[in-house]
């Protein structure tokens, strides 16, 4: 099976329906429509803080829509686990791990089992050391 090309859609709608076609030799069969819906995608809208200590062990709260109170949720910050303490349909609370000093690009991944990755829309959490702490 091959997927041919990418379709990009420029409109304001929150859902899109398309009909997959199955082509066998010269005959084409139209399959049931597939619906893409923004409501199925969990979205991050804010967080309690953008910054946390490299020493870790700090609680961070993520706010958004389409989260789950029951599904297994994992949070990875710069590829290190932020251990999830609790979840609701619009919050995820986790406790950060420590992180050794490595210059890199921040990376935030929130995954909800059965719902996929949360759309972070460019939001990141940054590990820092405060000048005033030293």
């Amino acid at each position: 099976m091959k997927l041919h090309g990418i379709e990009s859609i420029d409109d304001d709608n929150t859902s899109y329906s398309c009909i997959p076609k199955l082509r066998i030799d010269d005959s084409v069969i139209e399959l049931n429509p597939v619906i893409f819906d923004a409501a199925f995608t969990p979205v991050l809208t804010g967080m309690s803080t953008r910054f946390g200590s490299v020493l870790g062990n700090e609680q961070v709260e993520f706010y958004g829509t389409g989260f789950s109170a029951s599904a297994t949720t994992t949070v990875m910050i710069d590829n290190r686990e932020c251990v999830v303490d609790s979840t609701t349909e619009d919050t995820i609370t986790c406790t950060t791990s420590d992180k050794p000093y490595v210059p890199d690009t921040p990376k935030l991944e929130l995954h909800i089992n059965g719902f996929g990755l949360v759309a972070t829309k460019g939001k990141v959490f940054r590990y820092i050391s405060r000048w005033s702490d030293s």
Partner: protein
Amino acid sequence: MGPKLSFLNVEGSLIFPPDTDPEHHRTFDAHYILVQGGYLEVGTEENRYTSKITITMHSTKYDPNLPIFGNKVIGVHYGQLEMHGVERPITWSDLLETAEIGATEITLNDMNGETLDWQVGEEIVIASTNFSGRDAEQRTITSITNIDSNPVITFDEPLIFKHYAGVQYFGDDFIEMRAEVGLLTRNVKYQGDETSPENQYGAVIIMHSPGDETTAARIDSVELTNVGQAFILGSYPIHFHMIGTVHSSYVRNNAIHHTFNRAVTIHGVHYLRVQNNVAYHTMGHTIFIEDAAETKNLIEHNLIVDVRRSWSLLNTDQTPASIWITNPNNIIRYNHAAGSDRYSYWYDLQITAIGPSFDPNICPENTRLGEFHDNVAHSNGRYGLRIFHNLIPREHPCDPVDYETNKPITANFYNLVSYKNKRNGAIIELSGAV
């Protein structure tokens, strides 16, 4: 005041978080800040710097220079720079009615549903509407009323020059001429130290790393003053240098005033956005497209006031333009270039790409025009719009015109308003389909 740091090398991240008190004022002093593969933040687009900060750079011309970046500099090399002050919805406007000599108040044009948030104590500049661009005047706001319709601003000292506002009709046609008024103050300030004016040696911000998208800088709602380094090519207030495409970078809503060497330089980059800035009292070509290889850059809705001749730069900076354009394939629209010793918009189109971008296969003289429309030019020592030397666009720019295989392309310059120029509103030396 904190310590004056010598050399700050940012390989991780350096973040200035705002204080919860908007009146809190942080100062930061250094000679060099080099962001090497790192991240420097003074507010982001989403989380702006909401209190006050002044970053002051030090050094003299004779101190050690970093390659490319020099000194008295924020240098960004394979890095990311985020500077975002409090967003000001209106960075410049224009007059409703003429301000006479001796006036201590002005009335601004209709806000069109917006509200003016300019504050008492902030600095403004009122552009010249005379034949000399140098008749622009800077004042401090002492009161401001009527902020959601036609704001009335009073200031400390009476005006020395008349600033015109009016519409003149010629049959069905009309020409609208209004002195522009720009806001110079921002809560995030980047400046050269107090020795800068005397030595014409100010602070600079330079982005450089070869390769598309290898460096990103978003500079937004920042006041830059005592910036640019006279006599030193490449040391400009904001300088994007030989990167390639910079889709995620922009220079927006800033006030860049009292400079010694230009304002914004677009050098060897494509897709940079330069929007809603106010530049005032600058030296040499102010928005500068350097090598003629640069394309698809957007220069939109900027106000450029009082551009002065520079004897300490390129020869062409002795006859400066508010916007100097070496490759026509860029987008120039809705700008007001209000006063320059020579020109507002100069299409100084090159035969090939020049400088470090040299390429005989790029032929800017014969390249299609990106966009040029709805620009205003006034109070210039020579011309509002100058196309010099040639502009003869065609399908294959480096080959001779052939009406079968290499057809000319029309270049349309729409809606230029040009007035009070000592010589001509617009002039072209030699052109094809324009």
